[in-house]
């Protein structure tokens, strides 16, 4: 069961095709990383998912509903943190909580204060006087207190220091484990994402170039280090090759459908790829080479 599904999503801004046939399927209870370079269409995709933008082609379903006709009750099931969100600088945290909580039927005050205490935040503190990390943490906690079923985070840890980022990521994992929440996060800080996500989609030029469970992807995609004399077509016959290049007397072939049995008779060393390397492999490929999922 997928919480979010998009099919052939297209969105233009003038003549610019910001999203160009995006297909996404975010499974219930997953932490899904939407990964891509700046300007690749992540935020536009999120705006389409939120119903803040009208798609020019394709469909979006969230909780099996069209975002353009969300009811307030459905919106309350979604917690959304955008990059540029803010609160009035003069407001105390207590006042902000009072205003925000009035809009939500299921407001978890206990969780809110428990999480605020982690950063030593109190009701009488003024929002404008908080540090950047505290502000971000406060906004995240405000959204968590809504008790959403789906959390959509656009660059959630941008500009935060390592310790705040770490606490935030731990919180995400706790939420998914305790509340069966689904998380969609768009980010370009891959080291953060790798710590928590279980599904990823690589986005390039407004299109999904790879979508998969992270562990599955790591199992399937490997880098083979072969002697330079190895015939390329021999490798291409056995595997789907994503990239191939020579480096320091070694032929490096990244393959998409690795299976140990297919190596029989080949003299090679197998290297595992981390998320950053996987991202680079797919991001440097030509878009038309297709989606792997």
């Amino acid at each position: 069961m997928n919480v979010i599904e998009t099919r052939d999503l297209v969105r233009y801004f003038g003549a610019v095709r910001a999203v160009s046939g995006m297909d996404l399927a975010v499974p219930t209870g997953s932490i899904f990383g939407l990964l891509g370079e700046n300007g690749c269409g992540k935020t536009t995709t999120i705006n389409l998912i939120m119903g803040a933008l009208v798609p020019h082609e394709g469909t979006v379903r969230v909780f099996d509903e069209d975002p353009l006709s969300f009811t307030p009750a459905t919106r309350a099931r979604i917690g959304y943190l955008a990059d540029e969100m803010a609160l009035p600088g003069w407001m105390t945290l207590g006042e902000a909580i009072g205003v925000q909580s009035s809009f939500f039927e299921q407001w978890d005050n206990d969780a809110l204060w428990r999480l605020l205490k982690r950063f030593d935040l109190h009701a009488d503190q003024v929002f404008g006087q908080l540090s950047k990390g505290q502000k971000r943490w406060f906004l995240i906690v405000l959204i968590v207190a809504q008790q959403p079923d789906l959390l959509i985070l656009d660059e959630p840890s941008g500009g935060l220091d390592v310790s705040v980022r770490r606490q935030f990521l731990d919180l995400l994992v706790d939420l998914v484990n305790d509340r069966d929440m689904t998380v969609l996060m768009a980010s370009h800080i891959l080291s953060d994402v790798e710590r928590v996500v279980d599904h990823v989609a690589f986005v390039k030029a407004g299109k999904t170039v790879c979508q998969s469970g992270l562990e599955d992807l790591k199992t399937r995609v490997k880098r083979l280090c072969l002697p330079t004399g190895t015939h390329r077509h021999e490798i291409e016959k056995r595997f789907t090759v994503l990239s191939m290049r020579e480096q320091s007397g070694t032929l490096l072939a990244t393959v998409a459908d690795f299976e140990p049995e297919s190596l029989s008779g080949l003299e090679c060393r197998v290297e595992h790829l981390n998320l950053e390397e996987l991202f680079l492999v797919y991001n440097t490929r030509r878009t038309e080479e297709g989606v792997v999922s």
Partner: protein
Amino acid sequence: MNAPDFYSPSRQFRRALTRDWRLHSIELLCGILYPVIGFYVGHRVGQSQVYPVIVPFLVTAAFLFYLTRRLCLPEVKRSSVFCYFNLPQDRLMALDAHVAFLGMASLWLTVWVLAGSLLKLGGAGFTACYRWHPDFVMVPFFTTALTIRHLYLKHGMAFWRDSVLWYLLLMTWLVWRFYGIIEQPSRSVNNYWPDRSLSLTTEWATAAIMAAVAVWLVHTTRIQWRQRQIGGIR
């Protein structure tokens, strides 16, 4: 409380109105100072008091322009958590709450101008009870409506064409009234009524037209915002 009750239109409206009050009540209370200051702007105490009678209304209108921007811009630009697109509320309801709040704010400040006139603020000679001009009273309301329209509508060619028309009309009327009153002040010969260049009946008629246009501006803005709110950005 079940979800349909919690998200009923009346509850949504009340919540949105309460939010506006919580966020902007201090500005509204401090805003009283502006119409009061308006009585002392642009003239010396003891001078002919006919001219400043319009000034408190203009100052109030300027303050309401500022307040309307403060209130509505985060909703339009989606720059505040409290007005964010994902808040579980009908965005048309949010606009209605803003309109209601700003309508009450306009009324509240206008009452202060009228009270200031009765209290003869601005100088001992300020016998404004002789000089109330009904059309002046509409200036804050009209300005608020025009500002709401400006903030909520897409700024296309049609918008600018209409806006130029409305702003020119408003400014021409203001300048004409302003100078008309300055040039022809009240005298004992006319029982301290300024030579209005407009009869009181015409002023009432002008006020009624301004009120009707303000309502029409807000109404058309609501219709277009209803279309815009679905999909937010088009």
